[in-house]
């Protein structure tokens, strides 16, 4: 109506101050959410977010927007279901439309044996207090008739694990919504500010050097995803993390053909359809450790061919864009939230391929850690010390994709 004139800025452009109560390194979803919850839940607003590029320009802007909590272990279910519950109310809370769309998600089962495992997963999810249903092939057909129900299919559909509360969101809006809300509570958002060094005094992290100068704080939180090992290297320690490229794809826009999210572990492909009409799909990690934010051909080929087999009618759809983000993968495919080993420096990393869906929970728990110096009961099992104690939370199988 107004020709898109009259839009105000959603957040201030702040200058870097010499000291803060808390510095957060990384202006992605987790960093922005952490700053917001520090101010809102803990009344700490002398907070700076230092982002080397632009807000949400890393994995927050590169994922395929699926939001779910269909996990096997109680620790994971507590974490991801907290996130899902926060997503359910997020647009209202931030007064910013993050377009959370609980359209449900199905994880397909392709054999009698897979149906037995699916039943076990559904039972575990229900015991964890997460909504879950076991679908037979007819239930799947009702929700997603576009899928391949042929008996000649490479992997015939027997049923699925269904989580009705799962869905998708608008990834950029999550970053922007948290940024605007954090900014309005007094948080300084500093873009184009790259941390070059962690300043330690007497073994404690007391600040960081950046391309914009030195800045000090009582506590420092790092939420830098695929670059966590690089930051740890700067600070002088190693992490149990490998960085890999994870690819994603979007097709040309189509009329609505798919109103849920379908994932087939056997084909190694999952897809949904965006409000704009594009098919949004992805699959497994690249097989080669990488920091190059682009994918490689073998995985691209297997994901695209997996989609063509999952829903053969889509085989002639043209690919519009294709990209990759660098994800930080831990040995047990669960995140790391906790002290880094250097006093004053805390970690929120290791989300691997599933960081977007965890943004509200990651922010809540990391803010609790940075404000109080101690774990929230939900984040305690995800401490770095589990790799020494051996108490891993091995969720490699939960998302169904090997990582």
């Amino acid at each position, binding site marked *: 109506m107004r020709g898109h004139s009259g839009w105000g800025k959603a957040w201030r452009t702040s200058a870097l101050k010499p000291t803060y109560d808390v510095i957060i390194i990384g202006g992605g979803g987790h960093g922005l959410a952490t700053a917001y919850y520090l101010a809102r839940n803990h009344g700490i607003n002398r907070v700076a977010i230092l982002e080397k590029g632009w807000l949400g320009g890393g994995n927050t802007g590169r994922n395929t927007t699926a939001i779910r909590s269909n996990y096997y272990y109680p620790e994971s279910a507590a974490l991801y279901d907290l996130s899902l519950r926060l997503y359910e109310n997020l647009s209202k809370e931030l007064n910013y439309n993050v377009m959370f769309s609980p359209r449900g998600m199905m994880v397909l089962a392709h054999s009698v044996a897979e149906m037995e495992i699916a039943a076990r997963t559904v039972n575990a999810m229900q015991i964890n207090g997460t909504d879950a249903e076991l679908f037979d092939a007819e239930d799947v057909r009702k929700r997603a008739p576009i899928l391949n129900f042929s008996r000649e299919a490479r992997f015939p559909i027997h049923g699925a694990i269904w989580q009705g509360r799962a869905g998708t969101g608008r990834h950029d809006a999550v970053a922007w919504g948290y940024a605007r809300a954090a900014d309005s509570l007094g948080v300084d958002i500093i873009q184009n500010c790259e941390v070059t060094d962690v300043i330690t005094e007497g073994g404690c992290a007391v600040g960081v050097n950046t391309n914009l100068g030195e800045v000090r704080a009582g506590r420092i939180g790092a939420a830098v995803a695929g670059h966590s*090992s690089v930051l740890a290297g700067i600070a002088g320690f190693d992490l149990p993390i490998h*960085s890999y490229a994870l690819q994603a794809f979007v097709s040309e826009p189509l009329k609505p053909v798919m109103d849920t999210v379908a994932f087939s572990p056997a084909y190694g492909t999952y897809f949904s359809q965006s409000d704009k009409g594009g098919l949004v799909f992805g699959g497994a990690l690249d097989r080669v*450790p*990488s*920091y190059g934010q682009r994918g490689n051909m073998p995985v691209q080929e297997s994901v695209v061919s997996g989609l063509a087999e999952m829903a053969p009618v889509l085989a002639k759809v043209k690919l519009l864009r294709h990209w990759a983000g660098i994800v930080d993968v831990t040995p047990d495919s669960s995140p790391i939230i906790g002290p880094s080993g250097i006093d004053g420096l805390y970690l929120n990393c290791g989300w691997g391929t599933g960081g977007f869906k965890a943004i509200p929970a990651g922010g809540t728990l990391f803010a609790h850690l940075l404000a109080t110096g101690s774990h929230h009961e939900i984040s305690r099992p995800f401490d770095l010390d589990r790799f020494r104690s051996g108490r891993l939370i091995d969720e490699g199988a939960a998302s169904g994709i090997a990582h």
Partner: protein
Amino acid sequence: MQLFPCPFCGLRDEREFHFAGEVGKTRPKTSEPVSDADWNTYLNTQRNEKGAAREIWCHVTCQEYFVMERDTVSMDVLETVALRKEPS
């Protein structure tokens, strides 16, 4: 597809290769007690370098293990050397 140079077979399709681990990890001697911290370092901790990295790879088709030096950003392979030879 990217081609990786196997020191034994020459340039081959990347799908024939398997990443086996970072160079320089030595399994703790189990003839003596091994601390949890040492097991953690051996089993879990990674250098995960950005840029030049030295790694052990296996060429699955010929089953030979070798050292590959490559750039983890550009994905350029800088050098591959058989494990039995000293890298230059």
